């Protein structure tokens, strides 16, 4: 298909970087568009529509769904537990995104400062953490935090002398559960931030830095007034992705819950939606709320990016 479409004679000026095609170009978009419409668009719309309907057990056996207006939403939003989970999710997302960004940027700056050998060591180590499949990482972290034979409890009690940590269970208590989850999420996400920001740092021209130095700018001034503004687009994209990813975090929370944490005290939005699997309209309404929260947290950034990016 690509071949036939590309054979369309060029009617634009020869030097124009963009060709002017006939309708054939739409053919190139058809397969991807159909697939996304079917497997993403349709479920999204369906879910949105169903969130205004009654859809429970009876409907699963073929009863037509009844329109109930905003009932699913008011039910959810009048439940203080849902608000608790929303609050937790936003807090978890912001803390994780912030910690990941700070650590990631610090690592990127460190990579730019140190010699080739130290940089390679750090890069390979981060790549190993990045490349490990989520479930494999989750498995090791559970083993590290294992209450009986875990390496972390052993180090805390035998090396650092905190005896009370000997058989400490990390995931029973919600705060400690979120601490473990944060350690894992940050460990997994930092490499991506560090590499992206480092790639951005490499683009800052040497000449600009030298000129600023000649003009008497200190290292700190150069960093904050030249480097940071220049890598800002990279930072925006990366921060945006972190916020989106950390708000919808599911696997890490779900796996830790399965390891024996009290589900109700540790639910975030993703796992709460999952727990509504049997009540489809409620799940749909909550998923829509989550989408709205995502847009609220990221909308400003997206608008900014669109304004700056010519597309």
């Amino acid at each position, binding site marked *: 298909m690509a071949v036939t479409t590309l054979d369309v004679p060029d009617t634009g000026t020869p030097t124009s970087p963009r060709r002017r095609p006939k309708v054939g170009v739409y053919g190139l978009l058809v397969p991807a568009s159909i697939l996304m419409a079917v497997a993403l668009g349709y479920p999204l719309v369906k879910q949105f529509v169903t969130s205004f309907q009654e859809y429970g057990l009876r409907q699963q056996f073929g009863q037509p769904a009844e329109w109930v207006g905003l009932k699913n939403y008011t039910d959810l939003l009048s439940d203080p537990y849902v608000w608790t989970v929303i609050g937790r999710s936003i807090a978890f997302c912001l803390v994780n995104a912030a910690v990941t960004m700070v650590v990631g940027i610090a690592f990127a700056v460190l990579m730019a400062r140190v010699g080739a050998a130290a940089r390679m060591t750090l890069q390979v180590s981060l790549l190993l953490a990045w*490349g490990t*499949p989520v*479930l494999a990482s989750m498995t090791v972290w559970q083993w590290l935090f294992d209450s009986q*034979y875990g390496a972390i409890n052993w180090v805390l009690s035998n090396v650092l002398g905190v005896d009370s940590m000997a058989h400490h269970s990390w995931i029973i208590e919600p705060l400690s559960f979120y601490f473990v989850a944060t350690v894992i999420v940050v*460990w997994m996400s930092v490499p991506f931030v560090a590499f992206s920001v480092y790639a951005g740092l490499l683009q800052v021209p*040497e000449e600009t830095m*030298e000129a600023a130095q000649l003009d008497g700018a200190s290292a700190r001034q150069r960093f904050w007034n030249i480097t940071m503004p220049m890598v800002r687009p990279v930072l925006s994209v990366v921060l945006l992705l972190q916020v989106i990813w950390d708000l919808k975090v599911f696997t890490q929370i779900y796996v830790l819950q399965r390891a024996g944490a009290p589900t109700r005290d540790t639910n975030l939005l993703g796992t709460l939606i999952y727990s509504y699997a049997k009540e489809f309209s409620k799940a*749909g309404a909550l998923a829509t709320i989550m989408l709205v929260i995502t847009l609220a947290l990221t909308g400003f950034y997206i608008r900014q990016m669109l304004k700056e990016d010519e597309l």
Partner: protein
Amino acid sequence: MSTLATGAQPLMTDSADQPVRPTKARHTGPARDRGAGRAWGVLAVVIAVVWVFPIYWMINSAFLPLNKLQAPDPTFLPFGGTLSNFRRVLQDDTFWAAMRISLSVVVIVLVAALLFAFLAALAVSRFRFRGRKAFILTILVVQMIPAEGLFISQFQMLDGWHLVNKVAGLALVYVAAILPFTIWMLRGFVAGVPIELEEAGMVDGLSRTGAFFRITFPLLAPGLVAAGVYGFLQAWNEYTLALVVMTDPSQRTLPLWLQGLVEANRATDWGVVMAGAALIAIPVIVFFLFVQNKMTSGLVAGAVKG
């Protein structure tokens, strides 16, 4: 914005083969900076050791017998280890069944996603047409949609089509999930190949098709490889959708199988669990090490460039 956009452009080509760059320390000159530089170097290595420790621990534990794993003091070096944990995993039929499912899903996802994304990327980066901006915008916005908010609805859809517990069903939702980013990434790579090269080929007597396949396509190979690896990693590692779609234990993908192994052996035998995790992780990590450069640069270039 224009300076930044052009600034991002070289990322695509040179970040891969340009790891060494004069450090700031060399610029500032004075000898005391060299001492500081060494301190930073030590810090970097310490961080590297801390960060890689969980992976070392996975491999280390995978070689240890049960009595060492449950000894009062952990064994930090794998000397005197055993292969029995690996043997147990490799003799487990459910491991191979999950491997077969995972490989089938990955192959379908890769072929479909690469082909469709490539065509779409070609359209948006080589042609101007009505709806082009809207399409790019959609690609962007779709990536913002939390997939975790969609899975129940996707399950319902697949259920209606009798695609639950089917490789084809899982592959369908995977392809749709990775298409937007793959298009975004390939768009950056296609735009990075100057059209003038192709036109020069046509001046020299090649047809448009010939020019495309003999000149542009080979230059896109690294981009296609990077996009392919991205798709491979996503499909191989994905857990959430697999959990929802593959409810039948005989249809488990490898991550689901690993979670099952954890739940069966938690508190009894972490060694075999670590062997399972290592067997799933190591091929992926090796693969990943080779190509990550292209992936990061593709993302940054695609994201920042117009």
